[in-house]
């Protein structure tokens, strides 16, 4: 044994962001665009916000707006969620935390396998996900 680290997960990689969204129930429902595309509101109205990774409103919830992730110049994604969907469809900070959790799990598994580790995954009762890497 030698050290502990604590890391705050950042959404940077498009492929793992899509994998994380799939893990949260949006498999096959995620649009990916090289150029950011407009987001639409619940009445079909075009919003000022654009995004590269989009979940259209019909998949988000009742009377929902599009949910989007816009790539920033530094490579990180900005998350666009309407106030309504935060409040009534529960796409709030807790959901964003679970998205980062899913992203981290997917990315860590892939990186570890590339380096020859065997990976086991276990979901804990308190919501934590534990990965053990061995080689």
């Amino acid at each position, binding site marked *: *044994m030698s050290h502990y680290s604590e890391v705050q997960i950042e959404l940077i990689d498009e492929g793992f962001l899509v994998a994380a969204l799939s893990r949260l129930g949006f498999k096959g429902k995620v649009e990916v665009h090289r150029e950011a595309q407009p987001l639409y509101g619940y009445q079909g109205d075009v919003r000022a916000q654009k995004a590269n990774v989009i979940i259209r409103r019909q998949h988000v919830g009742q009377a929902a707006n599009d949910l989007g992730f816009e790539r920033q110049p530094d490579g990180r994604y900005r998350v666009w969620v309407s106030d309504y969907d935060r409040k009534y469809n529960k796409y709030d900070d807790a959901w964003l935390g679970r998205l980062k959790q899913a992203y981290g799990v997917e990315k*860590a598994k892939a990186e570890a396998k590339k380096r020859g580790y065997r990976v086991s995954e276990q979901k804990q009762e308190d919501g934590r996900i534990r990965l053990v890497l061995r080689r």
Partner: protein
Amino acid sequence: MSQEIVLEFWEDGQVNLEGKGFKGQACFKEMQFLKDALGVETSFTKKQEFYQAEVKRDGKVEAR
């Protein structure tokens, strides 16, 4: 002792990493790829073994 890395992903987007079975800075070096892949390190705690000598494959001992 076999070497393993344990990651605990919390629902708030934080992850704790722990290296087991490594001597000296080998753990630090080995876990770096995960830190680079995941995000920003917010805290770091050395355990006793971090200060122990690292035995290399050729039998030489590197003091830490």
